């Protein structure tokens, strides 16, 4: 039960003046149930990479195995793959289109060939999972607030009951509370259902708070792959590739520079507070 990429290469418009290698020899294995963050500057290949995960973009060379089967083999059931690996694009609320919320969320399961009753059941479960209030099920999705629209869009993918949920910047443009609510819900799903979650984000603070593994992309290559603590320890290198570490990492390093004895690997407020208190009590 895993997604395994071996030497993925992807070249845009090969043989033309616009030729560009968007992925260079990318290999990794993501096990079922992991919560993985992908970070990288604009144009680093993050979005191209995740579009490979459900076969939306096909690699120029290399292999991608889903549950042991190479999805590039002839006869691979792409439709089945896509209902197992659910992709939530950036600004997914732009893809809402139905007359009411419930019908919109039913669209995915309907296309999987489920009966209307089954679709509705799935849709209701999915909306409940994202914490969407029942009294708005019959509202037009266009009358909802930004945060609510995004929940509906995520529910639309969850209703297909994927084993892997890939989210491309799910919190861009949301207010702080909306950011926390969506990510808390996703973290809850990952824990409760054992779903694999792959989160692309520009917020280092969010990444540090939620994921247990980070892959860093830079110019189409995988630069780092490790736990958040391992990756954010390279904060200076991250800056040189257009990224950063969470603010607390900088605080801990600045304290250490001033000869205050703290471990510098704290990446959340909790950890930083614990570590600073410890240094004061010693």
């Amino acid at each position: 039960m895993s997604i395994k990429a071996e030497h993925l290469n992807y070249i845009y418009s090969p043989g033309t003046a616009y030729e560009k290698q968007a992925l260079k020899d990318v290999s990794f294995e993501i096990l079922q149930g992991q919560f993985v963050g992908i970070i990288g500057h604009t144009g680093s290949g993050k979005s191209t990479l995740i579009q490979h995960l459900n076969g939306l973009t096909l690699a120029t060379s290399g292999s991608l195995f889903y549950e042991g089967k190479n999805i590039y083999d002839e006869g691979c059931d792409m439709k089945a793959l896509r209902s197992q690996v659910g992709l939530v694009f950036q600004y997914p609320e732009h893809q809402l289109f139905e007359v009411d919320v419930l019908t919109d969320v039913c669209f995915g399961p309907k296309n999987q060939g489920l009966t209307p009753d089954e679709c509705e059941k799935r849709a209701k479960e999915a909306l409940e999972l994202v914490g969407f209030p029942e009294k708005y099920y019959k509202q037009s999705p266009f009358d909802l607030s930004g945060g609510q629209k995004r929940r509906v869009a995520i529910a639309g993918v969850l209703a297909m009951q994927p084993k892997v949920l890939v989210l491309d910047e799910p919190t861009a443009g949301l207010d702080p509370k909306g950011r926390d609510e969506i990510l808390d819900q996703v973290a809850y799903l990952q824990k409760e259902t054992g779903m694999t979650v792959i989160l692309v984000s520009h917020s280092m603070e969010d990444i540090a708070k939620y994921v247990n593994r980070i892959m860093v992309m830079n110019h189409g290559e995988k630069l780092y792959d490790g736990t958040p603590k391992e990756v954010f320890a390279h904060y200076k290198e991250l800056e040189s590739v257009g990224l950063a570490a969470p603010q607390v990492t900088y605080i801990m390093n600045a304290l250490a520079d001033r000869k205050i004895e703290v471990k510098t690997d704290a990446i959340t407020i909790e950890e930083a507070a614990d570590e600073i208190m410890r240094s004061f009590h010693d």
Partner: protein
Amino acid sequence: MGIIQTDKLTFEYAKHDEEGNVIGMNRAIDEVTLDIEPGSFVAILGHNGSGKSTLAKHINAILVPTEGSMWVNGCDTKDPNELWNVRQSAGMVFQNPDNQIIGTVVEEDVGFGPENLGVPTEDIWKRVEDSLKAVGMLEYRFHSPNKLSGGQKQRVAIAGVIAMHPKCIVLDEPTAMLDPNGRKEVLRTVQELRKQEKVTVVLITHYMEEVIDADLVFVMDEGHVVMEGTPRAIFTQVDELKKYRLDVPQVTMLADELQKRGLAVPDGILRTEELVEALCQLKQNI
């Protein structure tokens, strides 16, 4: 009189059902009165749907008040004869860089605004050069905008606004789609502009760290201005901000947490250096 001034500004719109019948009114802005000093840096915070973007759209008369008034550089935005003056006084930069770039070459894009103002050709070139220099994008003047990074595109969009020589720039979540470096680039540019061009900056954002250098912060909720003050005064009210679905910078949160655990850290810490300094002081006194 301030560069941007409102008196009980209210904006109401009708909600329609599927057949197009009016089913009620919605007050996006409810009697907001404010006065912004020329040359200041003002930030507006508020959750999604709190009315901040609606307010911003009033500043260059994309929307006009349904009740009350707004004046930009002394011009009433409701007066159709003042429309050009208002739009020339206040320029806007939006969230998505790809939606606001129209030229196929960077310098062409920046020149579009002044050209439409009827500025003589030599002056346009001078303005283009000056504005690109101001945002640090001069070396890209002959590049195609679609090859630029998000942060660079936003800087070009800002240059396009500056080239119109506005008195005031309104930035509506200009960093929402950018990576950390792009965010830094755009904020640094905004800071430079204030210093060099003396323009008034109105920044709308969901990133709390971005407003710590503002002169004044407004917090909006349900169409009202519910909090108003310096960043330090606003961010000391952690619980109040949470009530409005907002947050404080991570360093402020950490200082707050340390206070709760009994460390004598001062109130209103906004920067990494401030917290580090405070903790070093405490250490020395032990």
